[in-house]
């Protein structure tokens, strides 16, 4: 599988990652090499067995959460009990 620089740019947009052109070029080459190795999966017959148990679910009841002050201590920006972020809409 060949990844072009434009394809790498599209994936970076989806992944919310910032790269300059040189880094994208390098990444595209590395991803191509790794995906070429991974392409060997095409030569083997898979299984359709889905018998692996699903994760057990718990009762959906309210439980004590994390104290607001403890959350605030790690927040990059915080005011009046809320996270503050830059403008969302122009």
């Amino acid at each position, binding site marked *: 599988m060949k*990844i072009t620089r434009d394809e*790498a740019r599209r*994936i*970076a947009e*989806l*992944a*919310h*990652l*910032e*790269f300059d052109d040189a880094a994208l070029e390098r*990444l595209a080459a*590395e*991803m191509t*090499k*790794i*995906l070429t*190795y*991974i392409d*060997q*999966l*095409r030569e*083997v*017959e*898979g*299984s*359709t*067995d*889905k018998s*692996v148990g699903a*994760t*057990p*679910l*718990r009762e959906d009841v309210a439980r004590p959460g*994390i*104290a607001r002050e*403890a*959350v605030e*201590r*790690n*927040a*990059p*920006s915080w005011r009046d009990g809320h*996270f503050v*972020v*830059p*403008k*969302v809409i*122009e």
Partner: protein
Amino acid sequence: MNVAESLDAIHRLNPKLNAFLNVKADAVGIPIAVKDNIVTTDMPTTCGSRILRGFVSPYDATVITRLRRAGRAIVGKTNLDEFAMGSSTEHSAFGPTRNPWDTSRVAGGSSGGSAAAVAARMVPAALGSETGGSVRQPAAFCGVVGLKPTYGRVSRSGLVAFASSLDQIGIVTKTVRECAEVLGIIAGHDPLDSTSSNEKVDEYTADVDAGVKGLRFGVVREAVERLEGDVRANFDDALRVLRASGATVEDASVPTIGYAIAIYYIVANAEASANLARFDGVRYGHRSARAKTVHEMYFASRGEGFGAEVKRRIMLGTFALSSGYYDAYYGRAQAVRARLREDFAAAFQRFDFLLTPTTPEVAFKIGAKTEDPLSMYLSDIFTAPANLVGIPAIAIPSGFSREGLPLSLQIMAPHFGERALFRAAGFFEGETGYWRQMPTECRMQNAE
């Protein structure tokens, strides 16, 4: 070893090895170190990343609570590849951990700090985490015991998530008995982790000295047929030790084992790309100062905060899950993973244990693989299968290469077969006793 002795050893050796990122001087109890992707309220948790700079968890991981209740003292947090993504601890934002047997070489990874700390006698035990071999591979490179328990055996509440269908907390110790003791403390169901199992916690130390007479060991043919040099000779020696004990040692077949790394780098990265979406500069960790809008904030914070390997894996995972490629990559990888699971189940019909070397080579030189991600990934070729299948596996020291570097035998068992695993590993350790040898770095320090 008490806390004062442990802290003294850390103080002397850590400047050379860089195994610890944080040390806590007032801990009380039997010392243990914890990989720095397991959260603690009394020390920062960095995950080896700039993006978590300054982060202190508001709660303790379940394993931390259980260790403290059992009288263990958390003396520090150990170095790792950023977010546990790597096989050498060179991808830590805080510099590589060095191998106590040869400081020009890597300690392995991603739990390189934990393995080096135990090997250098800074602590008798350490927790690590496993996604594709991150406890066993560094344990092999550093000449110590490394266990990956069955998926679901140990609660992951408070382990920073990497790949949720694979992650499991593991243990590094000098001896098998110590490993079994620590598993007895941390194993068991936890209401805070719904993937933790209700399966009964076993008497893990009960059979450590029981011997292996009559037990059946299978040698995974497809994994060992291309072994060479010291790794080959050492593996053959290990088989002779088991054969001489009255165990049966025969060829086993796991036809799809060679696809493990290809499956792994789709499944693990796909899950990682979702798990690491939470690091966005909003709630904790690094936020870029140059962003004007919230959209720019996501891109800039992640761009500045994550290292190259983490970004590479998020990119691969995002690709594998993206529209048009999902079936061809993620779907395909899951189908081959199911096939691998069937192949292992069939092999365990005939055998109690399956054997391979833990790693295809000894610890490599620092810098040797950083420019070639694929060759780094192939370090985990023998360890990743157990994660994909969910079974327990142990790495046990099996001797030394001609240049004096540790080699390691891997023993795998069926799901929840930890007690049997400690029996087999305990026997091998008793017959060989390699754990008694001290790494170069400690011998030099002790002589000074």
